[in-house]
């Protein structure tokens, strides 16, 4: 029972991160019908931006003290630090990383995807793979191929729960931030004019254009939003598990995409649900079967969805028009 509860907690925390990334996939797919393969790598860039920002802001942590245990509060490098490591630092780091990645997302869209939008969708897909590899290999050159360790931004504690399980304070923060971000996204998409325009574009790009929507700007905005969420996920992952490397986005990106398909691609609540389900299933497999095959779980789930419910859990079957 305690194993179950423990794995459930871990799964929800992991799943929340998958959800954040899956949202970016699903939104871009909604407006452009494009699998943005580079999305997982934007998440990686987000984690690295967080790493450099945290160090720049004066947090000193796990990288110097080794993989420290609980309770080592990092102190600033510059005489007490420009900023004391705290939850506030973590938030500032995350928000700045989100802003940088939003800009990167817009740049990718502007210079790689927009020029090929007039060609077939296969061309766009190949371009996306190109961008993904550029980020991965460029990341290896720029950031270095060896893994880096994210500084500890606040002290982590284990809080014991009833039933023998325990929850780490990092997990709570990850979950709270993820929920806040998802609520914010929900408000943007369903309560603002831009959000309405996004939904219109994803419904039908041509008609949206005819109605006077600046579709290019909406598409760029969608990329910005998705990339910002991916960056947040990157920083949150680094807070949970401080080891980051330039190839960390490949598998996570793939799983998040599966999460988006599971929920119903193009469907925002679906991506959240799918992410949680993938996260929980994965930790359950680790807990009860074997950690070796945890990376195979998402793939098995994908095959099952494609066989039994290709439109996803919350997706609707789209009729094809000729």
């Amino acid at each position, binding site marked *: 029972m305690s194993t179950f509860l423990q794995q459930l907690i871990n799964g929800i925390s992991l799943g929340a991160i998958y959800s954040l990334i899956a949202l970016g996939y699903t939104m871009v797919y909604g407006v452009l019908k494009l699998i943005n393969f580079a999305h997982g790598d934007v998440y990686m860039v987000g984690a690295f931006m967080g790493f450099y920002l945290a160090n720049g802001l004066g947090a000193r942590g796990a990288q110097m003290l080794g993989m420290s245990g609980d309770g080592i509060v990092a102190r600033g490098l510059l005489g007490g630090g420009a900023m004391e490591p705290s939850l506030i630092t973590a938030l500032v780091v995350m928000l700045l990383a989100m802003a940088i990645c939003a800009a990167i997302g817009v740049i990718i869209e502007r210079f790689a995807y927009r020029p090929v939008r007039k060609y077939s969708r296969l*061309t766009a897909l190949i371009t996306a793979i190109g961008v993904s590899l550029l980020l991965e290999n460029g990341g290896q*050159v720029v950031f270095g191929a060896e893994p880096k360790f994210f500084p500890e931004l606040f002290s982590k504690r284990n809080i014991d729960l009833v039933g023998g399980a325990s929850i780490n304070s990092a997990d709570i923060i990850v979950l709270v931030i993820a929920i806040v971000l998802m609520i914010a996204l929900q408000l943007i998409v369903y309560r603002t004019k831009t959000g309405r325009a996004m939904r219109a574009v994803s419904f039908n790009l041509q008609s949206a254009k005819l109605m006077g929507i600046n579709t290019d700007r909406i598409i760029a905005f969608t990329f910005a939003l998705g990339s910002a969420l991916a960056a947040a996920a990157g920083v949150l992952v680094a807070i949970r598990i401080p080891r980051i490397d330039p190839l960390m986005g490949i598998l996570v990106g793939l799983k998040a995409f599966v999460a988006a398909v599971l929920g119903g691609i193009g469907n925002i609540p679906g991506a959240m649900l799918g992410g949680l389900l993938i996260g929980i299933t994965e930790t359950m497999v680790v807990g009860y079967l074997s950690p070796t095959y945890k990376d195979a779980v998402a793939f098995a789930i994908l095959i099952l969805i494609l066989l039994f419910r290709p439109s996803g859990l919350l997706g609707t079957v789209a009729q094809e028009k000729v």
Partner: protein
Amino acid sequence: MPRYLRNLIIALVVIAVLIGLDFVFQGRMLNPYFVRILMLSGIAITLAVSLNLINGFTGQFSIGHAGFMAVGAYSSAYFSVNYGVNLANSLGGGKVGWVVALLVSTLIGAFFAGLAGLAVGIPSLRLRGDYLAIVTLGFGQIIVVFLNNIEAVGGARGYSGIPIVKSFFWIFLVAVLTIVIVYNIVNSAFGRALISIREDELAAEAMGVNTTRYKVMAFVISSALAGAGGVLLAHFDGYLNPKSFEFIKSFEILIMIILGGLGSIVGSVLGAIVLTVLPEALRGFAEYRMVIYSLLLIILMITRPQGLLGSTGPLKAWRKRRKLTAENAGGGPAAAPTSPSTVATQPERPAPGGENLR
């Protein structure tokens, strides 16, 4: 001359040429490094041409070719190590025995890779859309995870002790066979069905093409040929490592056919050779190689999405010119091509893939 006789003669000539070249290369008259690159190009040709069948001609997007290659390589290597040696010895251990053992091994590799293709293809090709891309990507990753954990084939340490067959003849025989198979498929009724699926899947279905069946068949054939390519690789160095089948490998094959042009066999062959030789020439920039590749890919997609030889490749342009001059000279339909296979199989189109990835 009857057609079959002509084909038989061509086949014999090709085999004779390959044996002759094999003799030359085995004779150590050439730089062994050069011969090695040449043989690796042959393996790359097999892989690229087979991938082009599904990506270029059928318009479905597979990005896990290395996975099928791995299935072929490992299954054939397992056979060769555990049974192939005995089989060869029981047949006298001479040249004949080895040829039989290698043939069986190749067939086994192709069979299992085709089987994997069937398992991946059926769920993902029933649907229209980009699902094949994501499923093959996942398959490629998962195969590596499994290979890393199967101790019978060495796990993460790699699989060593596979009988080495460094034969120019064998490698290029498979490469030529792959080209012939793909060429014949593309220029048959089956191939026309595939091309119709690429151009417009809905219209193809409306015309009575069983799209799922054709897509799955093309995918299985493509996977099986990739498996044969894997068999060649397994026996080339006598050592396999799961690392060499990671996504980067699939991507390399993909960029070969995109560079050459989707839907162009000549393009695939050239792309395979260029991308095998280029890294050797760029050894000093190994660190930046993949960065350059990916930038190149993006720029190519923006400026020339059909690839260098796609749709208006030199061969097709030449053929069209020849057809035109023939029509002008002979005048009228009398000069029309005698065999329907020379009718341009691919209409001019802005980019391969078209609208069918809906």
